[in-house]
């Protein structure tokens, strides 16, 4: 590998150097830069959500404490949930989609580079808008699921809920655009020979996730429109006094919400499906089965939403249906887990940090998955629903699954993005503090839940005798916070002066490792031809591919133009949505004008330089 890498130094390059100023980042349409922006932004939001969580943990450390007011606590957990899901876990996964997918399939960029930039800016502005509510001391306070009728203007008269529904609908646009973009990219832009069944698993899971995005988000978008109309224009969708049914909100929310949780986990599954084979020096065991299992999870995930609603009273027939559908998901998930273990079986396992996080995921995600199975049993759920047992479940699957998977991906692909390794010693510290802190935080919650502590309460009676579990959780959270600091420290240090990484630092099999680290802005000077699932692991094929991909382009490849319309359009969309808060129809109509203008200008601007 390195012999090829040296070639690049003296090749004459006909391609432009990439610009670096601030303006070039604002107008960039390069998927790699957008990915980095996504990652950095999501990490910052992770700290925001994390600090919110820490304040809650200190409030809950002892019974009958009141460090903060009930109202503030309600804002904190609502913002924590909303932030972590919509501004951390999802965009962080999207950061990886962006960076990795085009490289893995051998493309120069995503299908719609400007749309990609638009997604990012909308995400950023939507997130800022949501958090701007803190400035008005009016952060959303009706929980991340926003059940009607608590969100009605009668019971939530302030602007808190307005901030919530407006920013979520803004963020929805970014997600749908992202989903369309990645589906198109994956269907249409694969390098020669990259058949669907040769795609790396991460790309596959991106594909499935994108489907979930484009199908699930519209449902909540409509639900949010109903909510907005109820609040601002007096419609009666969720007004029981007028025959509206608050439970309908729950249906619509969870029809979105359950696919959403698979949106969170599937990217992580994708990451570890790439990481585990690399560090076991074995191809993924049962590749097609793992792919189909992922598709099946996504698909069945559409038919299980009411397992969040067993206490709502849907009747025994509906309950039974959703029990069965939910439990069936355990099977494909288990298949995946066993295939990963089988991949490691007989391998030669290197315990890099990326691999540690992947193994950690297997160990703790299973715990969360199994508590999910307990929830899925409707009668048992009647005891567990809305208690800390559920809080334990979903942090196990989200933090122990989704986040750990993404951190595995971080250590795995960081050398590609930066040309430098993340420090492995700090990495191991990061891993072990995460493991200890995480389990110490969330394992005791199983007990506090079972002993009767409901969730979303700002304090609890000393009579319940659950103080000890809460204290352990708080201590764990502090350790976990330290792990987060270690991670960021590692990122910052290694980005600047980490050990240099070659093109293929891990001896990994996929195309992204066939190009220099960091890649040229055009990724591939010429597109390689793929003949197998692990192109870089097959001797002849690897040499052929490296010969094509390691050089510099002799002529500037046809790359899209930078554009400032994405950021302007994103700003105008955010503005237009923000004006909805006024509830005055003509102000709202005025707000649409800049959106139209920007869309038009965008449409008229050439996406690519015209040089032919």
């Amino acid at each position, binding site marked *: 590998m390195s012999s090829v890498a040296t070639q690049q130094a003296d090749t004459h390059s006909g391609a432009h150097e990439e610009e670096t100023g601030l303006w070039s980042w604002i107008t960039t349409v390069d998927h790699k830069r957008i990915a980095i922006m996504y990652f950095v932004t999501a990490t910052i939001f992770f700290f925001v959500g994390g600090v919110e969580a820490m304040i809650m943990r200190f409030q809950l450390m002892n019974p009958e404490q009141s460090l903060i007011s009930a109202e503030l606590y309600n804002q904190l957990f609502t913002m924590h949930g909303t932030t972590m899901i919509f501004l951390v876990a999802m965009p962080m996964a999207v950061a990886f989609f962006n960076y990795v997918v085009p490289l893995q399939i051998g493309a120069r960029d995503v299908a719609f580079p400007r749309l990609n930039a638009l997604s990012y800016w909308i995400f950023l502005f939507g997130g800022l808008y949501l958090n701007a509510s803190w400035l008005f001391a009016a952060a959303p306070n009706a929980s991340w699921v926003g059940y009607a*009728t608590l969100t009605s203007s009668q019971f939530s008269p302030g602007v808190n809920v307005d901030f919530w529904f407006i920013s979520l609908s803004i963020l929805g646009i970014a997600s749908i655009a992202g989903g369309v973009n990645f589906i198109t990219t994956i269907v249409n832009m694969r390098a020669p020979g990259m058949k669907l069944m040769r795609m790396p698993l991460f790309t596959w899971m991106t594909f499935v996730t994108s489907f979930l995005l484009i199908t699930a988000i519209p449902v909540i978008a409509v639900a949010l429109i109903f909510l907005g109309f109820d609040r601002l224009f007096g419609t009666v969708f969720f007004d029981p006094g007028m025959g509206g049914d608050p439970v309908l909100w729950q249906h619509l929310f969870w029809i979105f919400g359950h696919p959403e949780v698979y949106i969170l986990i599937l990217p992580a599954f994708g990451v570890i499906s790439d990481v585990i084979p690399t560090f076991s020096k074995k191809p993924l065991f049962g590749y097609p089965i793992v792919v189909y299992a992922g598709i099946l999870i996504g698909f069945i995930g559409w038919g299980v939403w009411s397992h969040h609603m067993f206490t709502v009273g849907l009747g025994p027939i509906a309950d039974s249906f959703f029990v069965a559908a939910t439990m069936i998901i355990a099977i494909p998930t288990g298949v995946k887990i066993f295939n990963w273990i089988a991949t490691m079986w007989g391998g030669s396992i290197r315990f890099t940090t990326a691999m540690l996080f992947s193994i950690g995921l297997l160990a703790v995600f299973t715990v969360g998955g199994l508590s999910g199975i307990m929830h899925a049993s409707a009668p048992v759920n009647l005891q567990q629903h809305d208690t800390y047992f559920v809080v334990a479940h979903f942090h196990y699957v989200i933090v122990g699954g989704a986040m750990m998977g993404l951190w595995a991906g971080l250590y795995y692909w960081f050398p590609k993005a930066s040309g430098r390794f993340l420090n492995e010693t700090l990495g191991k510290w990061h891993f072990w503090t995460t493991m200890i802190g995480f389990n110490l935080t969330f394992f005791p919650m199983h007990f506090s839940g079972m002993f009767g502590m409901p969730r979303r309460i700002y304090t609890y009676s000393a009579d319940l005798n659950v103080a000890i579990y809460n204290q352990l959780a708080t201590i764990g959270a502090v350790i976990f916070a330290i792990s987060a600091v270690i991670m960021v420290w590692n990122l910052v240090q290694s980005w600047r002066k980490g050990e240099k990484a070659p093109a293929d630092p891990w001896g990994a099999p996929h195309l992204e490792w066939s190009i220099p680290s960091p890649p040229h802005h055009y990724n591939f000077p010429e597109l390689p031809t793929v003949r197998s699932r692990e192109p870089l692991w097959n001797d002849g094929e690897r040499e052929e591919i490296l010969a094509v991909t390691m050089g510099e382009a002799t002529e500037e490849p046809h790359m899209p133009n930078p554009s400032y319309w994405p950021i302007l359009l994103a700003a105008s969309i955010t503005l237009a949505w923000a004006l909805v808060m006024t509830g005055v129809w003509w102000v709202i109509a005025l707000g649409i004008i800049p959106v139209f203008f920007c869309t038009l200008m965008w449409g008229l601007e050439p996406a690519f330089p015209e040089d032919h």
Partner: protein
Amino acid sequence: MFALARGGAVLLLLLLAACGTEYPQNSLSPHSDFAETIHQLYVSIFWWTMFILAVVWVLLAWVVVKFRAREGDEKPRQIRGHLGLEIGWTVGPALIVIAIAIPTIQAVFATQRPVSEDAMTVEVTGHRFWWEFHYPEQGITTANELVLPVDRPVNLRLGSPDVIHSFWVPKLGGKRDANPTVAVRDGEEPKYNWLFFTPQETGYFYGQCAEFCGESHAFMAMRVLVETEEDFEAWADRWRESPGALPPSGPEQPEDETELEMAGMPVQADEPDELEVGDEDPLVAMGRDVFLNQATCLACHAIEGTSAQGDRGPNLTLFGERTTLASGILENNPENLAAWIKDPWAFKPAAAMPGVDYDMQGTAGFWPATELSDEQVRAVSAYLLSLK
């Protein structure tokens, strides 16, 4: 992972140590048929999942230990899959899923079967942030402490006038939401949720609203008092007789229910407000006067047999018998009661009740401060506590 195992072991020890502790809201300690059904199901699922967890962890530990990369490792065999294994780990879990799903579905139907004929109905209404219990058969309304006879099936009809609440008394069974009652056309029956169980032991059971319902959701607790059939009937009689509205019959007022029953208290007179005060504690008399004639209390609260018939707040008949105050969050004693009447928001932000010196402006409308003096507050407390 090792840390995890170690952490798990420590926590298990903690759990064992904790077994002796009393958990009033323990969901693993069934005291009704309903809770028992759930518990058995839970235990069986628990062991299944522990078995699966053990399999996964053991395999994982084995792989991690056994297949570490070592100096001079050669390239491992490149195995791409194995059909038999795939079938095995699909069918195995599938069988387990079936083993879990079948009893689950049986329990689903068992816990939602039609109500038995002899069940006693109680209409439960979740308010922000307190519970109202109405017994249509007995014609009784009470709040925050549900009194039930032991061994008699009870059928709770759950509803709410505002937001979703969830009725949950873990030892007596699972929770079910009290959904806002959806208005229906004339002639149609509004739909309610129902919760059906038979308490099997007497005693106090703790419960709490389990659906986030706003600012004081954390303070929306409740108690269930399960009594013997006789005690329950006696309680119901006492409620209907409403001793609080009567001039007390002297210092030897019967304390215990059975005595009271034997005493055969006379039925409520018609004009309660004009009753003789007699040898009653003057503070109580003053309190009654304040409550019924001077303050706004009666606009929201009802006391059976008096002119207080408000229904915006808890029904306070027999309030003196309650062990808790303000939906289970405070012990019911004179100090707490006075403090509550003075300043409810100190205990329960956004409670729909005005304080002595602040107005209440909320979804229940506008209510001016009650402007009671300390003396009056003490009197009202004494009066309310005398209602037993």
